[in-house]
């Protein structure tokens, strides 16, 4: 450890740019182009907080001799940063918001990357009695009817977007004392939910990584464990359109998208586990064509309104 620290101090003496330079020298032989550049990635808290992103980015950085600056925010904020041209590539999980982003011309070359699912969690004694329900909307309707505490992300994140869509489907306009909008990240919301013995919608990955510290149990499963498809949680990646923001590093964005959707990247996603459980399931590779991943959902060339 001592040696490591000395090396670290020496490296810092050279400075951060020097550090990046060192990596570049090692890899520069005959490989011109992106070496030494920085890719700014805005992504969601769930990919970051589960630790997946570090696992994916380290090999990419070594492969190209570049640096990936990952900024984790809710899906809405991540897309907004990209809209301002402050990031090169976005990896998020709210298809409706991604579609808006593409329709407005900010995002290009969208790919499906992976999926996991959402689960509805709550206290073990389940005062609302939703355990084992087959339908997520039925469970939410019951929670609203019983007016038991429900903690909402309330932060325009992918999870929040999904939650609002589910309330909408359930025909409930959530409000009142039992419904708490927190504006916090998933881990914190799980903690608050646990402390109040309430219910919440969580992505499975964050729930699994926090399970050891809480008494919350899964009451309605997502599709991975045989639950309803309405709780699926697909992740997509898009490059920021260089025709809109000419400052973005489009080449490197596409290299990153290529890496993430490559057999190697997909394998890393499949092999990533937390507490012994797989958190994300790759879905970029398929023998059958999947054209819908490239365009907004329901888009068709004949539909002139959609193209506007």
């Amino acid at each position, binding site marked *: *450890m001592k040696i*490591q*620290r000395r090396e*670290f101090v020496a490296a*810092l003496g050279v400075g*951060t740019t020097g*550090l990046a330079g060192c990596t570049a020298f090692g890899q520069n032989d005959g490989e011109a182009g992106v070496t030494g550049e920085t890719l*700014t990635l805005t992504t969601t*808290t769930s990919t970051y*907080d*589960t*630790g997946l*992103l*570090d*696992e*994916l*980015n*380290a090999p990419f*950085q070594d492969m190209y001799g570049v*640096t*990936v*600056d*990952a*900024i*984790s925010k809710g899906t809405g904020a991540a897309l907004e940063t990209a809209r*301002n*041209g*402050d990031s090169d590539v976005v990896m998020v999980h709210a298809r409706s918001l991604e579609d808006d982003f593409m329709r407005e011309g900010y995002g290009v070359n969208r790919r499906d990357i992976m999926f996991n699912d959402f689960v509805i969690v709550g206290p073990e004694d389940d005062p609302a009695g939703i355990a084992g329900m087959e339908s997520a909307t039925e469970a939410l309707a019951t929670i609203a009817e019983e007016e038991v505490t429900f903690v909402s992300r309330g932060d325009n994140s992918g999870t929040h977007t999904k939650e609002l869509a589910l309330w909408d489907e359930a025909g409930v306009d959530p409000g009142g004392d039992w419904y708490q909008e927190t504006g*916090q*990240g*998933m*881990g*914190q919301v*799980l*903690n608050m939910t646990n402390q109040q013995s309430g219910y919440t919608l969580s992505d499975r990955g964050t729930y699994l*990584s*926090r399970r*050891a*510290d809480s008494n919350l149990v899964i009451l309605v499963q997502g599709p991975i464990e045989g639950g309803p498809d309405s709780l699926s949680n697909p992740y997509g990646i898009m490059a920021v359109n260089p025709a809109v*923001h000419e*400052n973005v590093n489009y080449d490197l964005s596409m290299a990153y998208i290529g890496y993430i959707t490559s057999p190697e990247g997909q394998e890393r996603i499949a092999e990533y586990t*937390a507490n012994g459980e797989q958190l994300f399931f790759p879905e970029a590779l398929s023998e059958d064509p999947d054209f819908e991943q490239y365009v907004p959902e329901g888009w068709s060339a004949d539909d002139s309104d959609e193209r506007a």
Partner: protein
Amino acid sequence: MSVEAAVDIGPLIVDLSVGRGPLFADFPFESQYVTSIIRVSLYVSGIAVFLSTLVSLPIALVVGFTDFIGKRLVTAVINTGMGFPSVVVGLVVLFTVSNQGPLGHLNLVFTKEAMIISQVILATPPITGISLAAVSSVDESVRDAAYAMGGTRLDVALVVVKEARYGLATAVLAGFGRAISEVGSVLIVGGNIAGANGISKTRTLTTAIRQEARQGRYDTAMVLGAVLLVLVLVVNALVMRLGDGGTVR
């Protein structure tokens, strides 16, 4: 007995360090992760306070020495600045350095330099305000004596600075405390970036604490909070020590 204890502690430590790799003693983070965060915190706040002091001291001396119409207004403006909400400053700086903003071509967004800009804006009012109070409280006879002995304006200023050094040290420390403990602006303009290798780029102690809290890991957040407190304490002790060194001749 001791073996049992070790077994008990083992999993706890591993649990705290999820995804962080090898451990440094019983500290829940990799040492270079924490070291790099501390370095970023000190670098950003240190430079910001240095620049703020360069701006603040002349302002405080000029305003403190001269009488002019609107002096009370200027003082009021400076004192109002002490209350700038850091998130608002962060937002304004973000819009300025964002690629769509007036300074967009400099590519400052999500860099340490952007964080320094916002912290300079935050630290300058308290440093100016407290310096002004310190300079104003120096007895007028000291200034008169300096003039009487044929001192130039610079000589007089130096004498006043020397007399007011404790107050000025307090001003700098207040600015430093404001800078290193704020989370709102550095999070917005810096983006809380740490590399995949665990080395911080724009992650400070405060944004790291916020991140741990976001994930519900309050225990590790507390550890980082303790580090921050110790750091501020050490800096305060050092600066006060410097002040003492000035008196012992």
